């Protein structure tokens, strides 16, 4: 049979394709339906948080940082509760990473704060002697791209029914609504309102001035994202 296949390239190719495609189906399909359900307490990203997530991706922070707490005592001691599938329901793309050159960031919002991030991103080694993380100084001057984040919010709301402007159940039984702007202007306003809260806790005068002027430096968006990781 194999000799025959080797003389008939078409059937040979079909043979290969069937052999390799089969495994994919078994591996991927069964999980699809169930794993995308959010666990209670998981909310969609706000406009500024999503903008910050884009800053994170743009700079490939995931090259060094994972966002996946494995169920080991040593990891839950270090990072907090192990990850649950539903916590990632609004993560497109997922950002688990595959290398921990730096620590996991899945729940970094629980144990680091705005002003610490500000110092750290400006010069990691000045806060953590021996750190090999690069300094990200340009984030303090680059302007964040809120519009692309807003376009993404609209897209996911439209195509994947991500519940913006809807009540989302929280752990304590209350509900929370994550707002999405009805227009670009409103989206910018929402982001700016969030940015002001962050900037108030920051020390860098240029950043504060920029936010006061209505501009959002990348660092502010990034910190909003970091703080949302809980």
């Amino acid at each position, binding site marked *: 049979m194999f000799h025959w296949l080797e003389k008939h390239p078409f059937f040979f190719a079909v043979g290969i394709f069937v052999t390799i495609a089969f495994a994919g189906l078994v591996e991927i399909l069964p999980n699809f339906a169930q794993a995308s359900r959010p666990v209670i307490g998981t909310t969609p990203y706000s406009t500024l948080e999503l903008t910050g997530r884009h800053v994170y991706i743009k700079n490939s922070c995931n090259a060094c940082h994972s966002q996946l707490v494995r169920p080991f*005592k040593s990891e839950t001691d270090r990072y*907090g509760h192990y990850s649950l599938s539903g916590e990632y329901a609004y993560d497109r793309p997922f950002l688990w990473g595959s290398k921990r050159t730096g620590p996991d960031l899945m729940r970094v919002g629980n144990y680091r704060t*705005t002003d610490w991030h500000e110092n750290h991103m400006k010069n990691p080694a000045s806060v953590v002697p021996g750190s090999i993380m690069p300094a990200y100084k340009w984030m303090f001057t680059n302007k964040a791209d809120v519009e692309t984040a807003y376009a993404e919010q609209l897209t996911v709301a439209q195509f994947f029914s991500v519940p913006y402007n809807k009540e989302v159940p929280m752990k304590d039984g209350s509900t929370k609504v994550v707002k999405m702007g009805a227009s670009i202007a409103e989206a910018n306003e929402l982001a700016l309102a969030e940015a002001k809260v962050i900037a108030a806790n920051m020390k860098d005068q240029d950043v504060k001035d920029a936010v006061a002027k209505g501009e959002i430096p990348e660092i502010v968006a990034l910190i909003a994202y970091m703080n949302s990781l809980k």
Partner: protein
Amino acid sequence: MNKLYLGGIIFTALMLLFTYMSVSGSEGGLNGDIVNMLAVAGAVALVIITVFVVTKYVRQMQTDTADGQLADEKWDGIGEYLNDLPMGWAILFFALIVWGMWYFVMGYPVNAYSQIGEYNEDSAAHNTKFETQYASITGDKLVEMGESVFLAECKVCHGINADGIDGKAANLNKRVEAKSVKHVVINGSNNKLLGMEMPMPDRNGLVNGATGAAITDAEIDAVSTFVANGMKGAGADVFANVCAACHGADGKGMDSVAPSIATFNPTLVANVLTHGKKGAIGEMPKFDRLNAKQKEAVGAYITNLSK
């Protein structure tokens, strides 16, 4: 001895040395941790199997000769023997397929393995082991434990020497700095330092008992330096007239009224760890994932620092 075998042995020995170095490099060593042991076993197996198998085939290159029946075809001059499968390979392949099917259909489901179940067992075992130990820890040992928590969790903000890294976080070698006192007196404070909702009023609510007027700028500066100096020097009068009512004459605080601002104590630190703290310097996160004993220990360590 054959150069090849010698080379193989040297290579194996070197790799085992490297493995040994990595294990001892982690200081804790194998630590009685089964996962560590399996990883090392895997590394050792990898080296030995590869060296063994490759040596075997290199031997055949050196001593054996190629033979067998050739297939009819040639591709660009490349021929092909119709030799049988190497027996060892074929048997292992077959055996592994059988094992795989068995494992997946029988071994695994019957074991009813769940990684979360495994985690629960592990942490329960860990907790029981240390809860019994914790119970008896006091005094210097407690401070030592606190130091270990501090070095693992806190030094990224407060620095190895707990000096706050040039004002980026609180300097824990002294109770409080003038800047922070001033900030609190002007703005008030609501950080649950007493473990409960009990705010300190802002400057409008701080009345000098002697003059009957709200605290003045000059008085604020004076009292801030006084407190930051470890309750010494000028400003004692302001403290006595404005603050002592709540913080006590010696600044050591009063139960359920105001915290100590003269010294640290473990309860105060534990409250900071439970609720976090926001002040003149910045924001300190809360540390839910530390257990009560760990908070007590690190409290003892910090109290010890400023003594």
